[in-house]
């Protein structure tokens, strides 16, 4: 046995065997007594806040979006900020599941399941906004190309239509991906649960999974295909969301660097949210063995990398405004830096530019408290980024006589906090009633570790390449 642990060994500690993994992870669902007060508290808060969301949406539908702060010239405010913010948060899930799968990154295994769930719930939160922000939500279905007696299609030149396709595709693929990944674990749950009704429920969800070689073969192929489909989505969804702005002629929106910069920002925000949830869940359910410090280290590094890309984008925006010589762009930057909302701009630079630089320090990446706090700054920063882009560009554009200010109302806040409550509520339900960590993939990891050990013991002088390759 080598003295240093291998990379895979760092991802699964505690000397588990297959059975103990089943117990550790499966029992979160099967042994409901594991859910303590902390779960109940967070769930309770989420549940209450969901009602605030219902109230906010109910009043919105009754009164119209005049209850919000949107106005002339700021047609989009919290509605679109929050839409983009939530969509961004969803991105980590897809990236972890799809891209890291294709890249054969074993460390994704213990975090992918709940990152995917986060994606789903975040997209649900995001999806509420474009629907409800319309003046007449009861006809929002006109954005879909459906056959109708008027032979009226949507207007395909509009980026909002691209959005409709991007987001619906995204949520469909994400849901499929998530569900297919769950099938082997549903089978495990079926096999391990005692009451008949529970067995039947899991059995239905497992769709007749018996773990035969044929099943595994098909599963692997299907999963890989979906991963292949999801991978472009990581890039496309947020690129298209960014086109809502980039296609317009509003100074501050009409920026060609938006697509890559939005994607990087999305991944940045997504990982921050994964850390936000992973830290408490790990501690509640004693998952230190499967979500190890190595995981956090890598997530922090990805945050740092994407954060740098985003910050580079900010700097470029300033540079190009001056380089363009365009008075509207120059004024935009001036207004961002010194205008009435300058606080938002500088807070953004602090949250997304300065604070993530602490992640260069390994000790910071190892300190979960600090890491968690940095994640919160990143979440706030990414929200501010959308605030800076959306209302701040609109409130002072071309014609000074039409300039105005934007103030969100209590209903704006209520709906925003409400979606956060909804997200928390759904996450808590997920944690309690679904296997939140991929059981069979952790077992697969164990297999690999054992395999490596085996190689190390018996074939020490074998080819170097064989070490990583499993058969």
């Amino acid at each position, binding site marked *: 046995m080598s003295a240093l642990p291998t990379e895979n060994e760092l991802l699964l500690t505690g000397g588990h065997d297959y059975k103990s993994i089943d117990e550790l992870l499966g029992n979160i669902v099967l042994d409901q007594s594991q859910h303590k007060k902390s779960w109940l508290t967070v769930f309770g808060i989420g549940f209450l806040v969901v009602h605030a969301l219902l109230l906010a949406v109910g009043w919105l539908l009754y*009164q119209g*979006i005049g209850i919000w702060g949107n106005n*002339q010239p700021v047609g989009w405010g919290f509605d679109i900020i929050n839409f983009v913010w939530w969509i961004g948060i969803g991105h980590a899930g897809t990236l972890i599941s799809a891209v890291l799968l294709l890249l054969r990154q074993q460390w994704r295994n213990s975090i992918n399941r709940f990152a995917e769930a986060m994606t789903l719930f975040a997209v649900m939160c995001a999806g509420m906004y474009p629907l409800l922000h319309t003046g*007449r939500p009861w006809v929002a279905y*006109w954005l879909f190309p459906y056959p109708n007696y008027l032979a009226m299609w949507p207007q395909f*030149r509009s980026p909002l239509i691209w959005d409709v396709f991007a987001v619906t595709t995204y949520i469909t693929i994400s849901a499929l991906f998530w569900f297919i990944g769950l099938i082997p674990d549903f089978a495990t749950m079926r096999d391990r649960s005692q009451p008949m009704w529970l067995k039947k429920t899991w059995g239905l969800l497992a769709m007749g999974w018996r773990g035969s070689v044929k099943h595994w073969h098909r599963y692997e192929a299907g999963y890989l295909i979906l991963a292949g489909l999801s991978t472009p989505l990581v890039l496309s969804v947020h690129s298209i969301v960014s086109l809502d702005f980039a*296609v317009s*002629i*509003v100074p501050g929106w009409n920026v060609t660097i938006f697509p890559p910069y939005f994607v990087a920002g999305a991944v940045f925000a997504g990982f921050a949210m994964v850390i936000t949830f992973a830290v408490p869940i790990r501690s509640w359910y004693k998952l230190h063995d499967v979500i190890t410090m190595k995981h956090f280290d890598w997530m922090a590094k990805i945050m740092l990398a994407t954060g740098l890309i985003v910050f580079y984008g900010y700097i470029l925006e300033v540079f190009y405004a001056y380089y363009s010589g365009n008075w509207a762009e120059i004024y935009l930057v001036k207004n961002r830096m010194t205008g009435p909302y300058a606080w938002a701009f500088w807070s953004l630079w602090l949250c997304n530019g300065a604070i993530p630089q602490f992640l260069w320090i390994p000790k910071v990446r190892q300190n979960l408290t600090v890491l968690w706090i940095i994640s919160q700054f990143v979440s706030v920063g990414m929200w501010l980024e959308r605030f800076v882009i959306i209302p701040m560009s609109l409130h002072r554009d071309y014609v*000074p006589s039409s300039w105005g200010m934007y103030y969100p109302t209590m209903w704006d806040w209520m709906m925003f906090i409400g979606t956060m409550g909804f997200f928390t509520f759904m996450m808590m339900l997920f944690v309690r009633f679904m296997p939140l960590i991929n059981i069979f993939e952790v077992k697969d990891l164990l297999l690999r570790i054992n395999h490596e050990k085996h190689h190390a013991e018996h074939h020490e002088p074998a080819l170097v390449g064989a070490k990583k390759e499993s058969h």
Partner: protein
Amino acid sequence: MKTPTQTEINLDAVRAKLSSTNGPEYWRSLEEVADTPEFKAWVDDEFPNRRSIADIDRRNFLKLMGASMLLAGIGGCRSMYLPSEKAVPYVKMPENMLPGKPQYYATAFPLMGTAMGVLVQSYDGRPIKIEGNPSHPASRGATDYFAQASILDLYDPDRMKGVQNMGDESTWDILISKTREALELAKKDGGAGIRFVTGEVHSPTEIRLLKQFFAKYPQAKIAQYQCGGGDNVREGSQIAFGKAVSTVYDLSGAKVVLSLDADFLHSMPNSVAMARDFMAGRKVSGVNADTMSRLYTVECTPSPTGAMADHRLAVSPNGLDAFARGVAQVFGIEVMDVPQSKSVPSAWVQEVAADLQAAGADAVVIAGPYAPASVHALAHAINAKLASTKVKHFESGVADFGPNATTLQAVVADATKSGTVNSIIVLGGDPAFNAPSDLELEKAFNRATFTVHITTQSNDTSAFCKWVGSSTHYLEHWADVTSLDGTTSIIQPLIAPLHDSKSPIEFLSLMLNNPIGGYDVVRETWKPLGGAGFDDAWSNWLNEGVVKGASAAPIAPTVNASLTLGPAQTGGDCTVIFRNDPTVLDGRFANNGWLQELPKVMTTLTWDNAALISANRATELGVKDGDHVKITVSGKSVTMPALILVGQSDEVVTLHMGYGRKAVGSVGKDAGTNVNALRTSEHPYSAKATVEKDSGRTQLALTQTHHSMEGRDILKAATVAEFKKNPGLKVEGDELAEKGLSMWPSNDQEFPWDGAKWGMTIDLSLCMGCHACVAACQSENNIPVVGKEQVIKGREMHWIRIDRYYRVHGHTEEEEKKGVMSKNSEITNSRDITDPSESRTDILNPNTIETVFSPVACMHCEKAPCEPVCPVAATVHSHEGLNQMVYNRCVGTRYCSNNCPYKVRRFNFLNYTDNELQFMEQTRSIPHSVISTEKPGGIGLLKLMNNPNVTVRGRGVMEKCTYCVQRINQVRIEAKKENRPIRDGEVVTACQQACPTQAITFGNIADANSAVAKLKKEPRSYLMLPELNTQNRTSYLARLRNPNTKLEAV
């Protein structure tokens, strides 16, 4: 099955049964007590008496089914196509009336001592839109916003209805009999106890009836009171001519005009005609700008006339007097006393006088209604010296009742001191609110035993009167009116009275025991003029809107050799001046939502009045816009929000009357501050005052919060000299924009079209920001009122807005050295009260301010940025180049508005159309919360006013200027019927029609001979934001100023 009734009842069995019962037992029928099996079956059957289907034969079955289906079908029709009430079709079609075709009737809109001839558009008997009457000299086809908005007063759900006695409902019959009782009693002493209180009486019929009344009751008296009325004007002409005359200015061909605090372009009687004539002299064609006339404005508070001036001097009322005396002195007029005023530079006096003298008979001096009498007298004297051809005098239009005339003060004195007044009859108006508060009119009302107010709206005066009778609106009654220049019009009704109302004429006629309707009373007045052909003449007058032969001939009074001007006033570094509010006037329009929400020209303020102060005074006091200031005049004080107005003299604080009415409908409730408490009958329109900062602030609903162009070339303005040097007024970058570099094929390549291409030009040289277009657009296009809160949020719905920017000119070298402001630099003056980060850095000299207006509506871009971003194709382009909104298709994403560089789109954030304040009855049951319930009849009444050709938009829908597409289509239909192309000038948009100065031109730009196409080739023509290459169909003509080079350096 047989029903029990058909069964024979076994009576014996019934008897037997009854005999066997003990005690009282009740039974319903013989059948029941017989208890036959048939009866049992009948009871058991859920639907007795029906006929079994089996009993019906085939023919009857088919009959019944056929009838059922027919009835079902009719039932469906009723809910869908038929009104739920009984409707009666025209059995005989009224002459010339086609359903859905508008009709126009000529009538006249009386206002503040004059009248404007109007044509009222009526659909199926409902008046819906006011247009100017081209054959009336005070209108010439144009209107102002009061005329436009007057239609809303007709349908106001808060209008006075029927008769009220001490707040209880009563009837006209009772009121009339009570009135006659009072008159009967008064007969003894010749009516010594009767007082009429009216506005200035301008109606020949009303004068005739009143004179008849005074013949009967020689001791009765009448007090004519008009807030902001012409006391100074009359006094001035008394000094100059020895008698009161009314003066009219005919500014066509005027070369040099000096305005002495006269806002003759906007707010004076007859302004619409004066603006038309004056602006005709400002029109510049091609590069020849030498024909431009010149305007000097010396004024106490900024006005549109000041904004249009080539040179503007901000002065205090004392400074105005000093200036007038100075100029008169140059003309060799004896002025007794020329005081020194620091705000009046002597170079100004000299240069202005020289310029006037040079223009001779083509020059004119106009004094404003609030200017001191001495200024009026001097203006008359100067005009006489100039032998100005631009001034016409007429016998005073205000009715002179000789010995029966009195004043409000005398009425109060008679009522309270001697107690001789027992009946007060108020015809219209609201003197209890808008007369100076030291009069204490309510005392007079309380002492009188019989007080009656004939009024269209319940106001503070009606609150004091025991009897209130609802007056008809001018669109509901027969009357007549003489305007300032002696033109007389018959006011004919467009609609039968909506409520149980009588016109003042009818009431007077009833007081004279003359029970004939208004129609006959008015005809009686004019019969002598018509003579034998009266009936023909009468219909001709109605048709034309002007009574031919009734116009007075001008008179030529001579100016007295020596003018008794009195000593010049001096002292006081703070003068408050009281002016009628620009939109709600003396309070009469306080319940008119259109006028409340109409941005006031100089301030863009809505729904409120504010103390207008200069930037310097604001700095001194340490107040920002909306901060409260306390204004004290001889012990009485009022606290109200301050508003910094660029161009305001440092010595003057302007307060607008008309706000703060206590008794008002739901629209005007809680709007603004009543400043009448500060006015005294001695100094009703200006007073020495102290101003100090007070605690608290009010958020002011300004529609434009940023007034600097931020160095952007959004609006082009130049002096004549600059224009001559650079006729295109090109700036750096314009060439690039003109090349129109585009990746896209041009619209002509993409969609070849040889039909009409609609386009518009707006000549900024002619635009004085009068907002008539805004009101006209609101009326034409069913634009809702959103209320103060929504305006503060920036959600006003006006499709056309008037942008107002400030520029600086004529600064001194010293200032330039100091670097305070550079040539034509824009002022950084943020009106963003919510935005403390921007501060005013310049200490502004009000005399160097140039105010420029630019009406902005949808530009109808050929490459419209709004169109490609709409996800549902709700905004699309028409063949003729209109950028169209399809309301039914709009989902309301607001992306189009975000992407509009001109920000001309308006969004229905809430259900504004049905939530208008007028509909709502507000009850305050919980502190700080207003519970609104729908007013009975509210929505229904206002719906009558909607233009049937324009969709009423609901919540969540985007809207914007359509170039009045409904008017284009109407004209197109007519042209097609006549099989001819649409003629140039045939399509007139609502804004264009209302514009007093004809600044707006609309037409087919594809036709090179059209007026609009020619204007687009003018060198001054420019597009807004051309670098965006949106290829706007609306273009502008640059604003030109014609300064006096000798005065430039001052």
